[in-house]
């Protein structure tokens, strides 16, 4: 195999990996920090993608302009879901949360099937197929924007967690609920805020994903498993780890597809996953506790 196809495939994988990272970032907060196993992550991504799609179809709003609309809406959906549905239905037990979010994902996906049918929809923006050549690889503009978006989002989330009271409260709550109550942290509110922010980040992912991707009621399923893989691979709760983990998985998938053929490309993902965890059980940037 010569470098004339290898390098473009690595670069292509990097941009796909950035999309995985974007989807995984929200999960890093929800699953990695708070240890809420959110199986509805993929279904909520699908909802956000439909949001972007309909804003474009009905009102002609560009997916990138939707960045101002969809993430805040998704934040509200996440906040309300956590506070009114997940907390109440799970009675504060973690294993119930898993079932509740799984149930939610089934309900949401089937509602989408019922209303939108199982057709795949795309937005055809004028720039959707424009490419730029980097080292012999032809990369679509939307993927490059998504790559930059993933970097910015990961950086912003990290800053938010390190430098704001809400970020500190979320981290504090993850380990020490009684201590959090004793300093006056509003525990249910902060839980819902984290969930809302995690889902809001899905809104960002959807806006950046839509110009180069498609939406269908099942679109989220392919992302859920990869997102969980990325979170664990990168190290629970580490945004930098999620970013690197996403990129690695994107590259491994692309190169694996090149070497083993498209349908076997995903084997590489889990082989790398197992290998890395064998030598770094805490994930790439995770901390031992």
């Amino acid at each position, binding site marked *: 195999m010569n470098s004339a196809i290898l390098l473009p495939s690595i670069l292509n994988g990097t941009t796909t990996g950035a999309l995985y990272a974007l989807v995984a970032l929200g999960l890093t907060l929800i699953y990695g920090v708070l240890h809420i196993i959110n199986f509805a992550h993929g279904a909520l991504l699908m909802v956000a993608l439909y949001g972007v799609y309909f804003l474009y179809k009905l009102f002609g709003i560009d997916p990138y302009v939707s960045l101002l609309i969809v993430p805040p809406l998704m934040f509200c959906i996440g906040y309300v879901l956590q506070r009114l549905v997940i907390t109440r239905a799970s009675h504060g037990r973690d294993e119930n949360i898993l079932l509740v979010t799984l149930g939610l994902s089934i309900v949401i996906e089937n509602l989408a099937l019922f209303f939108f049918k199982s057709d795949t929809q795309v937005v055809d923006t004028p720039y959707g197929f424009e490419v730029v050549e980097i080292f012999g690889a032809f990369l679509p503009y939307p993927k490059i924007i998504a790559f930059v978006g993933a970097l910015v989002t990961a950086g912003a989330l990290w800053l938010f967690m390190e430098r704001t*009271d809400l970020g*500190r*409260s979320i*981290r*504090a709550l*993850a*380990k*020490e609920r*009684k*201590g*959090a*109550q*004793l*300093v*006056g*942290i*509003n525990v249910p509110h902060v839980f819902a805020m984290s969930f809302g922010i995690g889902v809001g980040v899905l809104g960002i992912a959807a806006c950046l994903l839509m110009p180069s991707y498609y939406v269908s009621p099942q679109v989220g399923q392919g992302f859920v498993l990869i997102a969980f893989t990325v979170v664990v691979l990168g190290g629970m709760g580490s945004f930098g780890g999620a970013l690197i983990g996403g990129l690695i998985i994107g590259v491994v998938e692309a190169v694996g597809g090149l070497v083993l053929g498209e349908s076997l490309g995903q084997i590489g993902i889990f082989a790398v996953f197992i290998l890395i965890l064998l030598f770094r059980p805490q994930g790439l940037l995770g*901390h031992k*506790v």
Partner: protein
Amino acid sequence: MLEVRGLRAGYGHVEVLRGIDLTIDEGGIAALLGSNGVGKTTFNAAISGLIKPWAGTVLFEGSRLPGGNSQAAIDVGLVQVPEGRHIFPNLTVRDNLLLGGCRRGKTNRSVNIEKVLETFPRLRERLTQKAGTMSGGEQQMLAIGRGLMTEPKLLILDEPSLGLSPLLVEEMFELIVALNKQGLTILLVEQNVHLSLEIATQGYVMENGAITLSGLSETLLDNPELQKSYLGV
């Protein structure tokens, strides 16, 4: 400053506190004494809003606190440093202190953090270290420091000497006296009866979920019953 009347509380169907009456005067150190399992920690949880009392009233500076609302307790300046510290192990010392002032005392945070670091110079060396990696004594300092960040009017210290070496225990009691001299009212909840009564102004002895003895600490120290059951005299 704090007036508790007929406080009852428990978990599930089990009643732990069977009607507690207790008054704490402003500016003093009150000691709540008793051995393991008599309900001291439940009492703390009930007055600082961590659990909802079954009955009774808690008056703080004359106004009634709503039961089961820890934020309301913090807002008026009733702050607890819990048994077992409950600091945030995954956060740095600085972030722990900052969160102490995330609700009450928010406007003076930078001033307060400086004050806490003057009181506990050891914490200054550890500012960027994860709190969970510190020694037990340092964690106890951090727990108290975090409590002070909340600008308490009444500071409840639940078993601050637990798990500390004898030398550190003595330091801890000196610190409590020093904090009190700065004008802070303190409720000291302890098993160490003798040391506590030596620094306290008032004392309450709890047994089986009720107050069995109370009074000025000098009087209590001389009380034959207390001497027999707690001081081994």
